[in-house]
């Protein structure tokens, strides 16, 4: 027990240090710097990746609906927070829209999660009875259906049809100068909650389902009930993640939430390790840092003296990047972390010492 406390204190200190570091970087490098962009977007992706990992990595459900739930969350957030004064301009084609009130950022984030969770609960009813790859394709289908419905002209007064949603509070406006801190706080709380769930008796039940559905059912675990729970919780956090992404982007359109986005997040999860929360977080920051920053030079046509470096041209970055991903998928199938967590490294000795008893 004492050892556990130490561990907890150390973890909290590390997290606090990371937060302080994030803040410091923003204050020294400025809100517009590349590092800050990476920290913001990386954190948002971390939440989304962890939410997907809860489903695909911990519960063993191969779901490809994440983009759909992110879209629901993002739209819920944006619709609820556009200031009254700006509504007429945003909904110019729909007479100012139906919604004639505005809520605060935090309640709207919560609502984003709840609406996404509600969608998940409804979609889960039929879909979670499907197995394996059929589940994958059905959730992918639902994500596409959601995208079509959001752009439907008839509910345009709600969603602004296929037009942009904008002028809602963004990261830049919510806590000016402390965007990283805000993102880290929201994402940290959410991931903390997911961790608490994963390490509870329910998390063990999820893992049991992943390992062996038949044995799990023979242990009295109601498969549907637990899958539904994982699905709803995952979508709740995907919804909040979608809302944060909307805050990061500053404007919002349904067409950016295509299945390609789900694929990208799935690849992040795989790189980090299916079944590792810290792996997903690490992979998200790496993924964003590489794609937005470190590999940028590959996109620039460069000449060294009289020598023009071959291959370097716009788009080359993503090619290199996807080759790296394929190498991970093919040769390092466990990803960065496998199913372990960062704080469990060097823990093997201790694993034998009877941590679980008492």
């Amino acid at each position, binding site marked *: 027990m004492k050892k556990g406390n130490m561990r907890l204190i150390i973890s909290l200190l590390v997290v606090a240090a990371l937060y302080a570091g994030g803040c410091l970087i923003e204050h020294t490098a400025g809100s517009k710097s590349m590092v800050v962009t990476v920290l913001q977007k990386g954190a948002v992706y971390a939440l989304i990746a962890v939410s997907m990992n809860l489903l695909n990595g911990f519960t063993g459900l191969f779901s490809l609906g994440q983009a759909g739930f992110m879209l629901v969350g993002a739209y819920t957030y944006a619709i609820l927070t556009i200031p009254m004064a700006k509504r007429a301009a945003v909904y110019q084609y729909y007479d100012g829209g139906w919604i004639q009130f505005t809520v605060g950022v935090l309640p709207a984030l919560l609502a984003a999660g709840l609406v996404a969770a509600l969608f998940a609960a409804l979609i889960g009813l039929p879909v979670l009875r499907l197995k394996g790859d059929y589940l994958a394709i059905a959730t992918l289908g639902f994500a596409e259906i959601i995208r079509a419905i959001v752009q439907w002209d008839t509910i345009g007064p709600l969603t602004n049809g296929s037009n942009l949603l904008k002028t809602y509070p963004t990261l830049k406006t919510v806590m000016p100068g402390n965007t990283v801190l805000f993102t880290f706080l929201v994402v940290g709380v959410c991931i903390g909650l997911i961790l608490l769930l994963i390490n*509870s*008796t329910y998390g063990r039940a999820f893992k*049991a389902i992943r390992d*062996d559905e038949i*044995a799990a059912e023979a242990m*009295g675990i*109601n*498969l549907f009930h637990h899958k539904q729970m994982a699905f709803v919780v995952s979508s709740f956090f995907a919804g909040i993640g979608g809302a944060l992404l909307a805050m990061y982007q500053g404007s919002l359109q349904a067409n950016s939430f295509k299945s390609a986005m789900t694929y990208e997040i799935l690849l992040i999860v795989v790189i980090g390790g299916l079944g590792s929360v810290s792996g997903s977080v690490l992979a998200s920051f790496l993924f964003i840092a590489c794609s937005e920053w470190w590999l940028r030079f590959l996109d620039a046509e460069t000449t060294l003296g009289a020598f023009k470096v071959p291959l370097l041209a716009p788009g080359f970055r993503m090619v290199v990047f996807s080759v790296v991903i394929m190498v991970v998928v093919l040769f390092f199938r466990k990803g960065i972390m496998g199913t372990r967590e960062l704080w469990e490294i060097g823990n093997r000795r201790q694993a*034998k010492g*009877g941590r679980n008893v008492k």
Partner: protein
Amino acid sequence: MSENRNQSTNVLRLKDITMQFGGVVAINNLSLEVNQGEIVALIGPNGAGKTTAFNCITGVYQPTNGEVDFHGSPIAVNHPQGKMIRQYAGINGDAYKNRKPVAYTPDKITRMGIARTFQNIRLFKSQTAFDNVLIGTHLRRSSNMFTAAFRLNAREEKANREKTARLLEIVGLSDEANELATSLPYGKQRRLEIARALATDPTLLLLDEPAAGMNPQETDELGEFIVDIKNRFHLTVFMIEHHMNLVMDISDRIYVLDFGRQIAEGTPDEIQKNPVVIAAYLGVDEE
């Protein structure tokens, strides 16, 4: 043992169970009873339909026809009538016309008090021995997702961990508690599966070939172990087993299955002398 056979209530009853897969009849009109406190064995050559019978009891399969009662209440009832009769080769008279079909899912049946092990060991492979057993306590939880996530169920969690530790001690796996379940030797994996089953607080324990892959000494120990846990947890045990020594040693009664049919029933002595059994089974598949 057998002297309290008449006064005891029956825990499990199979009535005219038939299980077909397409045209293949895996079990044909099987009826049997398992009484409170008994150890009953189900034996028969490979492919006789023993595991299929377990799967019918635990709700993995819905029987094509017949009924399963547990402590007197039905957990599986199916008497196909009319159009559905096509799938069933037998005949259902009007007697069953008003019997409502019952098909409980495996998890519900486990919650009612039937726990099982698997012939081909199905432990949760990514988890430690301790967590494997701990998962077995999940079904009796009083927590919901929120109370569990926020650790409001700490007392229950502690009790479950203590129970798990105790069960591991009983099956002799305390030292291996934090080993990965699948890294344990075969015999220990079988014991771990039993511990996991016990964690669900069963009244009836179904063991599917618990001694498979064990050497004679281990098998003897397993026999004592089964009797021990039966008494300790007031269980009724129904097991499938091929090791005849074990079966004859600890069983109160034995059912013999061949090609999906029951060919004999009786005490170990009776079965050993039964010419039909000897012809069908012992004579062919002597170890």
